[in-house]
């Protein structure tokens, strides 16, 4: 297991992402942050803090549980626990920043987009991820990327966050061949 981002790097990356989001959107007025459970939710909260320190503006924040939109419910061996989507504001005409920890096949983002579209009609949806590890299976790209991390398929990217793990960091782990 190899640490690819440490705590300092983690915070620096978040700050850069916040700046890029603000720059591209020319400010924060119409932005809303929506994180995909589980770590996307915490990343969204962190980004809100950073943006508050920069712009002194508290953004609306939502949590997306994409379980009901997954296309692999039949194939997975365990049944994921439904925790629910929590978005207590109207996303219509908002510029939604969709946030997740790792962009991989693109299927999670596909599910999230489908769900967002069911929830309303935002002006735009932009995707922000901490890590893009490649290997896309769908035509999806991120608008904001913390770090591009070239990986092979037998590697796993593990994002640790203080909210549920003991530290802020990103690890790259090589899986045993023949493992899942």
């Amino acid at each position: 297991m190899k640490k690819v981002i440490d705590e300092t790097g983690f915070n620096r990356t978040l700050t850069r992402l916040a700046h890029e989001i603000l720059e591209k959107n020319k400010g924060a007025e119409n932005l809303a942050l929506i994180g995909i459970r589980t770590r996307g939710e915490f990343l969204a909260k962190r980004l809100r803090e950073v943006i508050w320190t920069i712009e002194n503006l508290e953004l609306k924040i939502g949590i997306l549980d994409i379980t009901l939109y997954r296309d692999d419910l039949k194939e997975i061996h365990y049944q994921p626990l439904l925790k629910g989507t929590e978005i207590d504001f109207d996303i219509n005409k908002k510029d939604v920043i969709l946030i997740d920890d790792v962009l991989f096949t693109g299927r999670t983002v596909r599910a999230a987009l489908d769900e967002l579209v069911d929830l309303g009609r935002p002006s735009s949806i932009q995707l922000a991820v901490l890590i893009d590890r490649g290997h896309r299976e769908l035509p999806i790209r991120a608008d904001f990327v913390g770090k591009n991390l070239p990986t092979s398929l037998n590697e796993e990217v593990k994002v640790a966050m203080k909210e549920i793990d003991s530290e802020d960091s990103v690890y790259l782990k090589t899986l045993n061949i023949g493992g899942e």
Partner: protein
Amino acid sequence: MSLENRHLLGLEGVSKNDIQLILDTAETFREVLERPIKKVPTLQGKTIVNLFFESSTRTRISFELAERRLSADVVNFSADMSSLKKGETLKDTARNIEAMKIDMVVMRHGAPGAALFLSKVINSVIINAGDGSHEHPTQALLDLYSIREKYNHIEGLNVCIVGDISHSRVALSNIHGLKTMGANIAVCGPATLIPRELDRLGVKIFNRIDEAIEWANVLNVLRIQLERQDKSFFPSLGEYRKYFAVTKDKIQKINKNITIMHPGPINRDVELSADLADGEHSIILQQVLNGVAVRMAVLYLLGTRS
């Protein structure tokens, strides 16, 4: 997290964990029901057959909405019990339908044990939508959900089921579910409509509505089936209303906060006064809404169980 059984045939023997999982999952679907588009693609490609041998419009609509909101393909089959007695057997009917490649069957049937029987003769996942006066688990689950929504807990509450307990489709499932979740349970009704040895299920029995109201936090008022009158269970609807109907003055006399539930359809001013049904104590319409969410939760948990 998965349910222990691949069918939902009843609440007897269902663990507290499983009931909790269903109720928690239903919370998510309550949120889905508040969305502009009240539909998720979760059960896309699954075919669900609603096999109704008794007309129960509400239960069928509630299940059908739940199924469609999960994007399942839905087929309705309705027949009456008399056709079952004469014509094709349940086994043949079910096997024929199953041969058309279906995934789940939601069945309403007049005979106790019919859902269990069905689970033995076909392979699909079975959800019992009422088997005679045996079990009706989703109704009890939606009642539990509604009680929990109101009080934030179920344990320790005094819940009294009022009316025709013997012929009720919902009493037994409610008793099992409430017991598992730690509530205190009572029934109240004419002695002729309370089945023998019910107390052995850990149920208190009242024959006086005033005592029941005094005791209860929640009254779950059952529909009095008008067509039962010829069987001499009680002399007249008038007498029933006088002694067993839940009315505002009977509640006000005791002057306490009480929650009124009813599985519907209500005979207004027979078992329940109209002002109570529509009043502040009533959570009857929440029950209906929660019914869809709870059924979505059950369909989701059983339909995606690997």
